[in-house]
């Protein structure tokens, strides 16, 4: 803390940066940094790049789905004869794209951005901490993630290409698959290690490094969201690690954990000991992957709550019930996993249990969403770019959530299972839901990281274009799915008679996706351009926000706060009757 006292007199950030650069060289300051802000930005930028990459894989698939068998114009020749002879996509390559799209979007895109990026950058600032509790573990967490990402990318270049068994890697398909699957497993083990280190750090930091006066019920909702998410990562990922090790053993050491006796592959009985259980993989996988769904959505809810309170200039409605719902949601997310497995013939007793827990878990989600919607009531809302994305999150997540209910009911799930309806459902949750919230967060905290706002006009163009296109992409998938078209078909259903009346929707979805890509250009441009040319934030608190991160200079120096912050009240004291201004910061006595 003597550090702080020494620099407390200086006002300009330049002095800080100079002070900071004296200590650390380029590599330690920007590459192998232990500063949570640098690590957060590293995570966020890597995550954004992976989101773009995963989206590109999808745009390739959308060509094949819209125009099955037609050679891809212009760039079709770039992928080589092994993948796209004459520009025509082979089924194996389609499967690679599908499996890696899912893997990359979930494990390398959304989670690193939502948890690694926003969690690392914002959480310590919001609780008034100088850094994370374990800065070196934090750095290790990023670099394990990086290794995991590199392994996944390299897997495209091994013989036979990347993993082809879907992001779920169901056995026994994944065990008889090519080398790419082994790379996938090794990559996953790196990613699991990374998230384990991150989760330990988040929880310890939140409990131990809170500013004086910051009790748990004074936490901004975002902190709560990250805190619960960290527990999910901590406890749900290890079973997948166990499953990953067993699958690796099946593939490399010839064991039969997931291989039943007498398995016939291409007309030949497989030479192996047998006696394994393919459903075991599904159980272990979904034991992670259902909590993982909440890892994807909770940080997004946190971001949206911050932005809504800030831009309605009102306290959040029902803060306590939101927090309790969040904790209950985290707990329940561990006992709903088998609703992904109704088709495995688990029996009515088990199915009844899991559909009941699934219906119960929808209640806290609805409480949170309802509280956020009621928070809008009677506010004089400022519709800046973060708020546009945050308000759009509400109906989009609502559609995603409500369309999930039929999937959680055993009987309704049977006709819908593995159709495009499922794709539409969870993409509404994650794409216009979570990813919109992440965009909102980028526009909202960008001034914190750079000292400048992003351009509002470009932001509005980005929002309107993305909002319209997202719905053009995903709304038709409900119709395609209700018609019964399976999500895994290489030709999008063209070979089936029953799919003919809905095939044209594939073309609509595809064009929606490609046009949406164009609307990301203003965002990418804005992201880089605003670093130097964005509107400067005069007092460092451009949104007139109440939470503690705005007590630090923007951008915050190494160690974050010039004076040790203290919390005097709850996080959302907006429009307090009788107060001099319409916000009373948490950190002002």
């Amino acid at each position, binding site marked *: *803390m003597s*550090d*702080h006292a020494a620099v407390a007199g200086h006002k300009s950030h330049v002095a800080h940066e100079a002070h900071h650069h004296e200590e650390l060289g380029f590599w330690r300051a920007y590459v192998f940094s232990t500063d949570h802000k640098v690590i957060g930005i590293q995570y966020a930028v890597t995550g954004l790049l992976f989101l773009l990459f995963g989206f590109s894989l999808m745009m390739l698939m959308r060509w094949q789905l819209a125009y099955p068998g037609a050679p891809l114009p212009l760039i079709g020749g770039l992928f080589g004869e092994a993948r796209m002879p004459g520009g025509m996509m082979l089924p194996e390559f389609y499967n690679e794209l599908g499996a890696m799209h899912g893997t990359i979007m979930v494990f390398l895109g959304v989670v690193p951005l939502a948890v690694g990026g926003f969690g690392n950058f914002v959480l310590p600032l919001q609780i008034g901490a*100088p*850094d*994370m*509790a*374990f*800065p070196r*573990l934090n750095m290790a967490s990023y670099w394990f993630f990086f290794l995991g990402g590199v392994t996944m990318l390299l897997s495209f270049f091994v013989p036979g290409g990347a993993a082809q068994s879907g992001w779920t890697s169901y056995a026994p398909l994944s065990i008889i698959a090519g080398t790419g699957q082994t790379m996938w497993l090794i990559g996953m083990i790196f990613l699991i290690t990374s998230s*384990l280190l991150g*989760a*330990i*750090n988040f*929880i*310890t930091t939140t*409990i*131990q*490094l809170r500013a004086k006066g910051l009790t748990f019920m004074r936490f901004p909702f975002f902190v709560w969201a990250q805190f619960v998410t960290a527990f999910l990562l*901590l*406890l*749900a*990922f*290890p*079973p997948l*690690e*166990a*499953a990953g*090790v*067993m699958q690796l*053993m099946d593939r490399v*050491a*010839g*064991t*039969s*954990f997931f291989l039943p006796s007498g398995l016939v592959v291409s007309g030949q009985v497989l030479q*192996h*000991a047998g*006696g*394994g*259980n393919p459903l*075991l993989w599904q*159980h*272990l996988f979904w*034991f992670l992957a259902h909590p993982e769904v909440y890892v994807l959505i909770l940080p997004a809810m946190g971001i949206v709550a911050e932005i809504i309170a800030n831009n309605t200039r009102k306290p959040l409605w029902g803060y306590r019930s939101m927090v309790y719902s969040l904790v209950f949601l985290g707990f329940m997310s561990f006992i709903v996993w088998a609703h992904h497995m109704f088709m495995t013939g688990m029996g009515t007793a088990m199915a009844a249990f899991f559909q009941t827990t699934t219906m119960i878990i929808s209640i806290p989600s609805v409480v949170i969403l309802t509280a956020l919607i009621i928070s809008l009531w009677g506010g004089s809302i400022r519709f800046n770019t973060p708020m546009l994305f945050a308000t759009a999150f509400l109906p989009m997540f609502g559609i995603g959530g409500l369309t999930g209910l039929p999937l959680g009911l055993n009987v309704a799930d049977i006709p819908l299972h593995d159709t495009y309806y499922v794709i539409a459902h969870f993409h509404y949750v994650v794409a216009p839901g979570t990813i919109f919230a992440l965009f909102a967060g980028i526009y909202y905290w960008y001034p914190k990281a750079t000292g400048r706002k992003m351009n509002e006009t470009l932001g509005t163009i980005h929002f309107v274009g993305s909002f319209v296109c997202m719905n053009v992409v995903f709304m038709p998938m409900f119709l395609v799915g209700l018609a019964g078209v399976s999500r895994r078909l290489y030709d999008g259903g063209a070979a089936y008679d029953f799919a003919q009346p809905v095939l044209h929707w594939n073309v609509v979805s595809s064009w929606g996706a490609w046009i949406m890509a164009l609307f990301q250009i203003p965002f990418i441009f804005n992201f880089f351009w605003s670093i130097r040319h964005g509107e400067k934030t005069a007092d460092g608190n451009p949104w007139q926000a109440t939470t503690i991160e705005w007590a630090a200079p923007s951008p915050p120096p*190494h*160690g974050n706060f010039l004076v040790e912050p203290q919390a005097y009240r709850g996080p959302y004291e907006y429009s307090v009757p009788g107060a001099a201004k319409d916000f009373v910061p948490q950190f002002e006595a």
Partner: protein
Amino acid sequence: MEIPYTVELRRDTGLNNGKIGIWLFLASEVMLFGALFASYILIRTGADSWPRGDTILNVPLATFNTIVLISSSVTMVMAWASLMRHRFGTFRIYMGATILLGCVFLVVKYFEYSHKFHDHLFPSTNNFLALYFTLTGLHMLHVFGGMVVNAYFWGPGAKQWKTNPEWFTNRVEYSGLFWHFVDLVWIFLFPTLYLL
């Protein structure tokens, strides 16, 4: 910049950061081994026949190894207790003993493994052996990991005793907690694989 509560306790939680961190890590380890034990139960209950562990595995060797690991947990506690009493020399002896006992465990395990390979018993032979090699293999990795950390505190890491003895003592305690956990996992593994 310094991170608060690396050594001193935070008043309202009564803990320092490392203590929370290591317990969280152990919680995740419980989930890892919990999933493996659950898989063991599922595969075994689904099998047509299952060998008794003692017909394939060497129970006396494993009993010896159990004693070795439990003793190493005792020496680990003594190492930490010596630091609490500011007896650095005694710490070195006990910590050295802990590492040596870890080595003994691994060497015995090496003989067990090579004996199995010699008899053409591999992970691919049947699911009992698959589980045996996977579970004990992962456990051995944990033993090895614990030994690396302990060796660090015995050797180069011990420098910290001169600059920040309290912090050093805490770190040895965390390492000890992990070591006890690894010991505990073996106490579950031994009857599950060798006796049942």
